[in-house]
């Protein structure tokens, strides 16, 4: 490509010379220079080096462009999957909260469990990666709270949690479930896992399901800044407050500007480029407004163009307690429940286990897709930056090559005169 344009350039140059009445020396020189080239050692080396860098840059450019294409399409795919996952999450959430209510209302597990009580940990992840720290935050949470010597077993849903945990907690893994994440989790998937847990014969007193709760709207307050509300995934969120300026934030699209009559005009570029994950409960995100003010102009009101880098985590790693039949029947608050026989309680708990697993899997799937969407968006953006830089270097190098060739031609022509 570079060579072609070089030739074209020279041809144009030659045409200009002939039109001016000169001899088409340039073309001749070029053809002669190719003959001459093998003779002049160091010069040729230099030229070759320039050519080879040009080639290398163009190859690198092409590969980065391809990577960007891939990450872009992966973003599209996960955006579609995320939309579906979020739609399905709404009923699943009501279902899961319904399943959880009994344990909260009956205050089961309020008292400290015995120190030697056996536990069952369920890590809800999937087989697929490239989605930020969704899976590793689950594994990290387990690793931080449970030493490999403890009296517990882990059920890994999805290959990711297994690969991370098996290095340190291999002897604690009860079984793992693979083929998770290709399709949206269904209730029958949850039932299958629940059934496997019950059939495994492992007797546990209490347990925990570790999963990522999807948080769609992240809103926060800082003392120096007006209130922002970000809806990750939904393209444009605008909201109105009487005292605060109206912001319209678009995550993913580069620049959103808006107008207010009395208030300064902001143009916000919310590049969710830095994603930091935090497994602790408190901070969901961190806001970096140590921003680069790109352009700044005043007519009557200040016009800001801000580059706000917001790191948004759309999910929160969370735990859902599990209780064995024993733990439930021993609970003092169960006495208020009427006409309980062992069979009913057992069936109830088995169904409740499946319901809670289903809920956790749905939340996890939605978190994963939204996180993958952000991750792929960032990757595309980074690739875009790299492409810009490479294109610039490529053009500069090409220019340098052309300039040098011209110098050679002109000085050659001058020598012939």
């Amino acid at each position, binding site marked *: 490509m570079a060579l072609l344009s070089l030739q074209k350039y020279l041809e144009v140059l030659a045409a200009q010379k002939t039109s001016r009445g000169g001899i088409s020396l340039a073309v001749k020189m070029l053809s002669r220079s190719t003959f001459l080239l093998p003779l002049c050692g160091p010069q040729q080396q230099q030229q070759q080096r320039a050519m080879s860098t040009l080639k290398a840059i163009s190859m690198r450019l092409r590969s980065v462009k391809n990577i960007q294409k891939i990450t872009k399409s992966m973003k599209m795919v996960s955006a579609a999957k995320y939309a579906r996952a979020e739609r399905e999450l709404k009923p699943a959430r009501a279902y899961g909260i*319904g*399943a959880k209510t009994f344990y909260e209302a009956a205050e089961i597990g309020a008292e400290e469990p015995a120190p030697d009580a056996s536990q069952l940990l369920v890590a809800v992840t999937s087989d697929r990666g490239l989605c930020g720290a969704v899976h590793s935050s689950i594994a990290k949470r387990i690793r931080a709270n449970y030493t490999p010597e403890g009296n517990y077993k882990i059920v890994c849903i999805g290959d990711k949690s297994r690969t991370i945990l098996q290095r340190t907690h291999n002897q604690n893994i009860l079984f793992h479930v693979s083929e998770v994440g290709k399709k949206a989790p269904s209730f029958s998937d949850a039932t299958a896992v629940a059934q496997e847990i019950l059939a495994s014969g492992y007797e546990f007193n209490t347990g925990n399901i570790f999963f990522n709760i999807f948080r769609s709207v992240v809103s926060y307050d800082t003392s120096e800044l007006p209130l922002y509300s970000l809806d990750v995934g939904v393209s444009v969120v605008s909201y109105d407050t009487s005292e605060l300026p109206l912001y319209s934030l678009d995550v993913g699209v580069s620049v959103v500007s808006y107008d207010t009559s009395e208030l300064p005009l902001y143009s916000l570029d919310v590049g969710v480029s830095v994603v930091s994950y935090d497994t602790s409960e408190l901070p969901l995100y961190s806001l970096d407004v140590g921003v680069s003010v790109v352009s700044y102009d005043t007519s009557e009101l200040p016009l800001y163009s801000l580059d706000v880098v917001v790191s948004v985590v759309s999910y929160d790693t969370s735990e859902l307690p599990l209780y064995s039949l024993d733990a439930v029947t021993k609970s003092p608050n169960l006495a208020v*429940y009427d006409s309980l026989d062992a069979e009913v309680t057992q069936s109830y708990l088995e*169904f409740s286990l499946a319901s809670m697993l289903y809920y956790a899997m749905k939340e996890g799937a939605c978190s994963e897709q939204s996180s993958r969407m952000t991750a792929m968006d960032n990757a595309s953006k980074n690739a875009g930056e790299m492409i810009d830089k490479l294109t610039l270097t490529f053009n500069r190098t090409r220019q340098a090559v052309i300039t040098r060739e011209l110098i050679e031609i002109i000085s050659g022509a001058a020598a012939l005169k």
Partner: protein
Amino acid sequence: MALVRSALRLTRSSGVLAQCSRSMADMPLTFAAPSQVFYNQQDVRQVDVPSFSGNFGILPNHVPVLAVLQPGVVSVVEADGSTNKYFVSSGSVTVNKDSTVQVLAEEAVPLSDLDAAACRQALTQAQADLASATGDQERVEAQIAVEVSEALVKACE
């Protein structure tokens, strides 16, 4: 001073009373299937559920209970008196002491969505499967299918 205090106490206790009487009539119902929510903590008047220990109705301030759903019809009497009926395959019912009710079904559909002919066909198919079932698990599965489709046919009538 004493008068003010007693007056305060009076208003406070009447507030408590008012709260009590309000919670008497409330029965927030959550009725959901995995992919569909019918009621999300919505106040209703009465819920009738089919359980393994027989059908029973739930009114506000029902004694706390845990139950397992049987294939059958759940009917919900809403606050305005209208009744909605749903077919459920299985699931669980929880009535808590704060009068909240959770009906979680494995599958649930409004009764109006059921096709009587298809239900009858499913029953014949299930009976045929039961007859040809070999092995314990297969037989139990077929038996469950028969039970569910019998309930379906009954619900359609």
